[in-house]
């Protein structure tokens, strides 16, 4: 018991120190100052202040969680959170002390300036003792909030966190949310909700209450809802599923007009990556072939589309060929490339395969920029004047319109990919992925299976490239670097290897997030990186792990026996 207690305090202090370093770091790189004017809730709290509260809140939460897990009493849990909060202040206080006693700290740490001191002492620059107490107080209270959250019953905690996160996000991404709302509500109404990009207090409170009530209600009712859904007779269930699907489809169709031009543009890019993710997933997720040269297919598709449709000097048809004819050509061109490139590497496994494919990616980049192919694809100057797709006489110029092409392509890709996964060939790929030798001993022609995986996988990359060419209107070699391959691979891993919904979410997170984070100006990539790390730490299996993986987890913790309707597992709702 005595030892246990000690370790609770120790871990609280450790957690506090780690968060304290984070707090100091955020200040020293100038984040507090950069966002001191950015009001998340008008005249109540700025983003800079939230950045000060947050490390302590997380620290308090983590310390409390650990204490709780070791079986400590609530008082101890709470106390450990408060201790963590107090300790969080230490690194920053040390820096304050150094700054007060040594001149020229600013020469090294440019952001340890007046603004910073003002922020961390809550405007008590002149009286550092008061400032110290203010900081300590604020951090302890923040950590206390984390501690209280830990102690609350699960449903209540979930609802509170949901409501808090909702208000925070709506406030933080004021600019984006405003853009969306602009399409829906008149300006005057908008101004009662937002003051420029800051949420006003009253709407914030309303939002919090609504979020809380909604989430709590859902938490309480969720089991009952799923139970009554499961109790429905099969035809009725199908009806519910159909209605759900219909609403979802309508929402998908209306999406670009709801979110406006800027976001539509991002969504189109996300969609292009979703397609590539689904394609690469066939090689990696299904067949287990670590392909690091996926950009090859993207480039082939883009250049084929470019030279076939361009109205410029490099255009082969003088702009006569339609986008719709080019799509299948790009698809086939990419498949042929995939097939040919797969031939020499069929015998390779694992890491060696990865390096070889990486090489292909590099080769295609070099070829694109080379003088040798310059007469055909323009070298560094690229291919210009690629016309927009023409849909029965309408030029699809805007991202809102191009969205539908991407949506259709994604749906087709998704459909094919699901069908493949559940087919005999999907099973074959799975066997090859798990153990090539055993697969061969089962009678599987592993070379053929791999060749097919590379070829099919390449197809969607080609289409994605063609759409990209039409969207941007120009194709340059520098769009086809190894980073495309890495991004596509990362979004698959982030989303959950082998999981189709995961890929969609992964693409949104990986490709969409940096765009949304523009709000954070120069700190965008820092936050992006931190968020990616947090996501992977929290969900090492990916955001939405694949069915197979879920099945494994389920088998490890067997659920209650299923109702005896049928022996086979029912597909989940809305899947």
């Amino acid at each position, binding site marked *: 018991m005595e030892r246990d207690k000690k370790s609770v305090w120790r871990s609280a202090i450790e957690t506090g120190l780690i968060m304290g370093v984070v707090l100091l770091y955020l200040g020293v790189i100038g984040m507090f100052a950069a966002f001191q004017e950015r009001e998340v809730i008008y005249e109540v709290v700025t983003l800079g202040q939230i950045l000060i509260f947050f490390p302590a809140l997380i620290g308090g939460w983590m310390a409390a969680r650990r204490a709780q897990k070791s079986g400590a009493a609530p008082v101890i849990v709470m106390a450990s959170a408060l201790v963590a909060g107090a300790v969080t202040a230490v690194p920053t206080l040390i820096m304050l002390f150094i700054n007060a006693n040594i001149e020229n700290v600013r020469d090294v740490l440019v952001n340890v300036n007046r603004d910073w001191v003002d922020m961390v002492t809550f405007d008590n620059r002149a009286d550092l003792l008061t400032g110290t107490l203010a900081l300590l107080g604020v951090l302890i209270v923040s950590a206390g909030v984390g501690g209280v959250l830990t102690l609350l019953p699960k449903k209540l905690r979930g609802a509170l966190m949901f409501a808090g996160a909702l208000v925070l996000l709506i406030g933080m991404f004021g600019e984006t949310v405003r853009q969306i709302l602009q399409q829906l509500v008149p300006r005057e109404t908008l101004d009662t909700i937002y003051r420029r990009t800051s949420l006003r207090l009253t709407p914030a409170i309303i939002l919090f209450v609504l979020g809380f009530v909604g989430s709590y209600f859902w938490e309480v009712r969720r089991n009952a809802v799923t139970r009554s859904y499961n109790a429905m007779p099969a035809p009725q269930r199908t009806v519910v599923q159909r209605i759900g699907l219909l609403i979802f489809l309508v929402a998908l169709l209306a999406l670009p007009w709801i979110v406006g031009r800027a976001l539509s543009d991002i969504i189109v890019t996300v969609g292009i990556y979703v397609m590539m993710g689904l394609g690469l997933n066939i090689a990696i997720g299904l067949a287990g072939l670590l392909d690091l040269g996926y950009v090859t297919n993207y480039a082939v598709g883009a250049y084929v589309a470019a030279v076939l449709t361009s109205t410029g000097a490099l255009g082969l048809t003088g702009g006569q060929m339609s986008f719709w004819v080019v799509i299948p050509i790009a698809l086939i061109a990419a498949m042929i490339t995939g097939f040919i490139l797969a031939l020499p590497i069929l015998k390779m496994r694992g890491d060696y395969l990865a390096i070889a494919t990486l090489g292909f990616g590099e080769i295609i980049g070099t070829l694109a920029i080379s003088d040798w192919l310059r007469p055909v694809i323009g070298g560094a100057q690229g291919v210009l004047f690629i016309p927009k797709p023409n849909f029965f006489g309408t030029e699809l110029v805007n991202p809102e319109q191009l969205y539908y092409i991407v949506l259709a392509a994604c749906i087709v890709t998704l459909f094919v990919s699901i069908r493949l996964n559940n087919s005999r060939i999907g099973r074959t790929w799975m066997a090859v992925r*798990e*153990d090539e*030798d055993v697969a061969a*001993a*089962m009678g*599987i022609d592993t070379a053929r299976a791999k060749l097919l995986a590379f070829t099919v996988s390449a197809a969607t990359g080609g289409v994605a490239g063609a759409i990209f060419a039409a969207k941007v209107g120009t194709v340059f070699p520098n769009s086809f670097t190894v980073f495309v391959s890495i991004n596509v691979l990362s979004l698959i891993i982030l989303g959950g290897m082998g999981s189709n919904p995961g890929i969609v979410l992964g693409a949104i997170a990986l490709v969409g997030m940096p765009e949304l984070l523009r709000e954070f100006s120069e700190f965008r990539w820092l936050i992006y990186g931190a968020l990616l790390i947090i996501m992977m730490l929290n969900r090492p299996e990916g955001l939405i792990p694949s069915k*197979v993986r879920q*099945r*494994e987890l389920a088998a490890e913790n067997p659920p209650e026996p299923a109702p005896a309707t049928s022996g086979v597992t029912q597909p989940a709702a809305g899947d």
Partner: protein
Amino acid sequence: MIERQTSMALLEVNNIHAYYGNIHALKGLTFHVEQGEIVTLIGSNGAGKTTTLRAITSLMHPREGTIMFEGKDITHTPANNLPAQGVAMVPEGRGVFAKLTVEENLEMGAYYRNDKDGIREDLEKAYDLFPRLRERRLQVAGTLSGGEQQMLATARALMARPRLLLLDEPSMGLAPVLVETVFDTIERINKEGMTVLLVEQNALLALEVAHRGYVLQTGEIVLADSAAALKQNPEVQKKYLGME
């Protein structure tokens, strides 16, 4: 049974030499398996037992020598064509598809076959042979116990309707009670007409069920005899049966 018969053996391995790079893993191996027999290959770690099975199933190619199955030369038949020829293997470490269910694993065993009804039938047979597997039809193979995985791997190999079953160390990592069960099953399958080539380190048990045995030592066969005779052989007793 002991002496080489004049009629053609089901499996004939003639003087095969196999290499891993410079390592000469099989040095002129010659042996045969008759229709209806259980033949065991015993030998200590690294003797070349697994390599022999890999050579028979074309997962590696011997540099010299031939392998005949039912009178046909299968030395260079691609591995994936062998199930259709009638040779099935339960690989070392079982090699079940961890993420597929028991039933899906069994279906993979019948991969080359197209006769849906026959597959259904054999599935039922497999479940009759291993009732434990029927209970766990929908369980993911990776979560089966070691013994269950061994049953699954064996049942999966049988799904190919082979005429020769190759087993690589079925006793590996199993508790003694389970090992007994596994060997009982092997005997039962054999009684129903299956020819078995059994690779084992557990020589005692292997010689218990087998008709004949070969002792393999650093890639060479050093002894060949009936199982009963091998059990009595002082050298075998000392080296492989742990008797003094």
